[in-house]
C-alpha cells in the first residue's frame, strides 16, 4: 500500500451476477474501459476489474468482480460474494428466463453475501427494443417490492451504464459515511479516512475456508 494507484478514500467491492449471456462482462468493460468488446467470451470463474469515481470530493475505488453465470459455477463464485458491499443483479430485457431467475439470484445473495449488501437490479440490452420481453414497469415494481434499486442499461450503446455504477457506488458511500458519523469505527469492513476502506475478500483465509468446505 502507499503507491500512487492506491490513492483513494474508499474501496468498495461490488459483484456482478446474473444468468449467463446477459452482458455482465460487457457492462464491466463498458464501465471500466469504456469499451464494448465484441470478443467477449464466457467468463470462467470470476474476473476482476477496477475503476475510481469521485463522490463529494472523495475518491471511491470500485473493485468489481464479474462472475460466471452458469449455475455450475456458483459454488466457486459465491465465495466471492463475501465482503461485497454492492451487487449488480443483471438480466437481459429480451430473455424472459434471465428475469425469472432473478429470484434465485437474490436467494443466492441472501445465502452467501453480507446481510447489508446493496442490490441493484439491472435490465441490460435496452437497445434491443424490438425484442423486449420484460416491460420496464414490471421490473421496476419487482425491484420496489424487494427493496432493490433499478435501472435499464445498454452496454452496447452505453446507455445508463455510467449512472448504474455511479448510483450504486454513491448509495454505498452515503450509507458508509452516515454509519461512520453514527458509530465510531470498529475495525469492521468499513473504516474511516485514515486508511482506505478495504473490502476486498481480503484475508484470503475467509475465502479459502469457504471454498474448501
Amino acid at each position, binding site marked *: 500500500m502507499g503507491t500512487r*494507484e492506491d490513492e483513494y478514500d474508499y474501496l468498495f467491492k461490488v459483484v456482478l451476477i446474473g444468468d449467463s449471456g446477459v452482458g455482465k462482462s460487457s457492462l464491466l468493460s463498458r464501465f471500466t474501459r469504456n469499451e464494448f468488446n465484441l470478443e467477449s*467470451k*464466457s*467468463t*470462467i470463474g470470476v474476473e476482476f476489474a477496477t475503476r475510481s469515481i469521485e463522490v463529494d470530493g472523495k475518491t471511491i475505488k470500485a*473493485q468489481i468482480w464479474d462472475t460466471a453465470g452458469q449455475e*455450475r459455477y456458483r*459454488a466457486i463464485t459465491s465465495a466471492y460474494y463475501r465482503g461485497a458491499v454492492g451487487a449488480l443483479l443483471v438480466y437481459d430485457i429480451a430473455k424472459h428466463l434471465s428475469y425469472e431467475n432473478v429470484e434465485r439470484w437474490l436467494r443466492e445473495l441472501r445465502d452467501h453475501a453480507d446481510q447489508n449488501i446493496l442490490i441493484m437490479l439491472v435490465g441490460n440490452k435496452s437497445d434491443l427494443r424490438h425484442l423486449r420481453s420484460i416491460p420496464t414497469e414490471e421490473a421496476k415494481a419487482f425491484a420496489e417490492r424487494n427493496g432493490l434499486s433499478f435501472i435499464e442499461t445498454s452496454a452496447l450503446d452505453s446507455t445508463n451504464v455510467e449512472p448504474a455504477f455511479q448510483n450504486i457506488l454513491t448509495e454505498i458511500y452515503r450509507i458508509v459515511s452516515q454509519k461512520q458519523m453514527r458509530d465510531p469505527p470498529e475495525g469492521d469492513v468499513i473504516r474511516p479516512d485514515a486508511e482506505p476502506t478495504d473490502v476486498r*475478500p481480503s484475508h*484470503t483465509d475467509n475465502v479459502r475456508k469457504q471454498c474448501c468446505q
Partner: protein
Amino acid sequence: MDSYQPEYDKNGVLSDTFWKTPQRAIPGRPLQTVKRTEVMSGSSYQQFQASVNDAWDLGDDDIISGIAETKISKAISQTAALNVINSHRNSSRNVNKNDVKVESEIVKPKAEAVEVKKNEVRKLGAGGSGPMRHYPGRPRPVRLSALTSREESSESKLERFQQMHDSAVIDLDDLKQISWSGIPVKARAITWRLLAGYLPPNAERRAETLERKRADYKHLVRQYYDAERDDDTYRQIHIDIPRMSPLVALFQQITVQVMFERILYIWAIRHPASGYVQGINDLVTPFFMVFLQEAAPGQELDNFPLDKLTEEQRDIIEADSFWCLSKFLDSIQDNYIFAQLGIQYKVNQLKELIRRIDLPLHEHLQTHGVDYLQFSFRWMNNLLTREIPLPCTIRLWDTYLAESDGFATFQLYVCAAFLLHWRERLMLERDFQGLMILLQNVPTQNWTDSNISVLVAEAYRLKFAFADAPNHLHNAGKSDR
C-alpha cells in the same frame, strides 16, 4: 575444448573444478532456483538441489570429450569418477560435433533437453529409489537430430513419426517420447488420435476402428441431439458457442457452430456427473483445428469456408473431435464435477508448490490479498487455452497428450511454471489490483512454440522434483506459514 586437461587432486580423484557445474545458465538447470530457495533454510527441496548440484548436463559434454582422448593410468581408472566417465564415453562422442549449436541455440536445446530427460526417467525411474539419484541431465546417448537446426530437425522428426505410424504395432511409449517435445503439423492429427487412445496402435485394427467409431458417433447424434434435448444443457452450450471466437470468421459459420454444439451436447449428456461446464467448449477447439488442418492441408484456416469440404470430411472432423475430446476429458473429469473439486484441489497444490519453490513470490501474492483461486481457476479449468494463442495451445497439447500418466498431474506443474514465468513482473506490482489485472491478462500475444517448449521444460523440471516426492508438498504446510 580439446585442450582441456582434467585436473586430479593428490588422491587421483578428479578435483572440484572438473565437477563443478558451469556457471553459465543452462536450460533446465535448477541454478536460479537454488538461489531463490535460500530463504527456506533446511527445506528438503533445497537439500535435494544441493545433493544434485554436481549433476551433469548437456553442456558438460564438451568437457567429457576432452577426457575421452586423454590417457589415464590404471590406478586412476579404478576411481569411481573414471567409471562414470567410461560409462558415458560413447554417449558423449555423439554430442561432440554439435557442441557449438548447443550453446548458440538457446531455445531449441531446452525443448530437446526435456526429451532427453524423459528418456532418462523412463529408464531409471523404474528403480524406484527416488529422484535424488536420477536427476536428469546426466550424459546419455543423444540423437543427432535432437541437436540439429530447427528445419532439419522437424524434417527428420516428421520422418520418425511417419516411420512410427507405418509400423504394424506402434509403441505408444516411443510415440509419446517423440511427441512430448512437439509434433510436426503433418503428423499431428494421426498422432493425436493415437495418443488420445482413440486410434489403436495396432495397424490392422485402425481402419475398422475409425469406421466403427465414426458410425457410432452418427448414432449418438441421432439418439441425443436429433431427439428431444435437455433444455438447460443445450441453452448454455448454445449461448457459449457463438461467443467463443467472435472475430474469427471460421467460427462464425453456422456449420462450424452446429458441429461444436453437437459435440458438446452429446458429451455433456453422456457425462451427467459433470455435464457441460463453461470452458469445456474451449477444449474442443484444438482438436477441431488439428483435424480441420488435416482435411485442408496448407490452407489459411481463419477464413476457411467449411462448405469447401465434403460432408464426409466434415463428419470425420466432428466425430474424431468428439472421441478425442471424450478420451482427453476422461483423465480430468473431476475438474468439472460439482464444485469443481479437482480444480480446487489443484489450486491448493499450486499454492503449496509456489510457497515451496518461490516463497518471496508467494508472500508477495499473499500480502496483497491475491488468492490463487482468483487467477488460476481459469488456467486450470480451460487448460490455459484462454491465456495463450491457439497455435501455442495446440503445441502445448502435443505435450499434454504425450504425458505418460495423463496430464492431470502435469497440468499443475505447467500452471506453476506459467506463474513463475511472470514472477519478475509480478514482483514489480505493488497492489492487489495491479497483480490481478496482470494475472488475468498476461501478455502472451507474441508467444510462439518455443515459449511453450520452455514452459513445458520448466514444468517438467518441477514435476520431476516434486511429483515423485509428495512430502515436499506435505511438509510445506507444516513448516512454513
